[in-house]
């Protein structure tokens, strides 16, 4: 059941990315090009997604525990630390160069544009490096 539901959630997410235009880097870059060829469509994606999640999360959290797991497991931190800011800034630069964030990159992979085929493995290597960096930084902070 977990596998089936996980799969369906992934399909829904992926279809949402395609329908909304998020899976097209040209559209993402034009959204980010505020002073040029600005295409505000992605604001509608973010708006539609966060408002839906805002309402849905509240309904979901009324339950004592999630349907398929023993307990909710959610981030609790509220502090703003250098790692968060540095990470977000680095991500922003990469997003601005390629027009892909992680979800759309996965969804675009089967369409096999050469740029995507290079982007996804590089992203996976980056995730491993990022986690290493986090551990090293954390060790220095302690």
């Amino acid at each position, binding site marked *: 059941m977990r596998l089936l539901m996980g799969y369906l959630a992934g399909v829904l997410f992926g279809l949402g990315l395609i329908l909304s235009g*998020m899976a097209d880097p040209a559209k993402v870059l034009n959204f980010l090009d505020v002073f040029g060829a600005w*295409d505000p469509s992605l604001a509608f*994606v*973010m708006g539609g997604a966060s408002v839906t999640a805002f309402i849905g999360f509240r*309904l979901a959290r009324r339950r004592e525990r999630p349907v398929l797991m023993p307990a909710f497991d959610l981030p609790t931190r509220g502090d703003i630390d250098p790692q968060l800011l540095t990470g*977000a800034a680095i*991500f922003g630069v990469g*997003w601005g160069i390629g027009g892909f964030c992680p979800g759309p990159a996965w969804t675009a992979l089967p369409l096999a544009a050469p740029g995507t085929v290079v982007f996804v493995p590089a992203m996976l290597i980056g995730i491993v490096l990022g986690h290493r960096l986090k551990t090293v930084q954390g060790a220095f902070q302690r």
Partner: protein
Amino acid sequence: MLPAVPTEFTPIASLAGGVLIGLSAVMVMALFGRIAGIVGITTGAVTAPDRGWRIAFVAGLLTAPVLWILATGTAPQQSVGTNLLAMGAAGLLVGVGTALGSGCTSGHGVCGLARLSPRSLVAVVTFMGFAALTVFVLRYGGL
């Protein structure tokens, strides 16, 4: 860097797609009690003890375009940058940044904003700002 390819303003499709993304995030919250952050799910698909549903989720992302083609008869519209060196660098930066910053457009963006998380709001403003700045420099900076 991709040259500026004109795109059409699509408020209705984008809003509808956004709602589907939001529903998926709600599914993950209601069923698994987790944040639907793609980088978190990708990492967890390798490292988490209960990695099965996360692997299935990524499989869902990967098969979505196939289902789209079967349903509509057309491939999803996309223009991807052809400078492979730039795309490799972009992928590396996106990976490092989202791992270090503990989230991406979905985790901090969709889910974090929906949870009114101050960390996520700061992350979203930061990555949006740097992304817009990067596009500005690459398109108009004469590089």
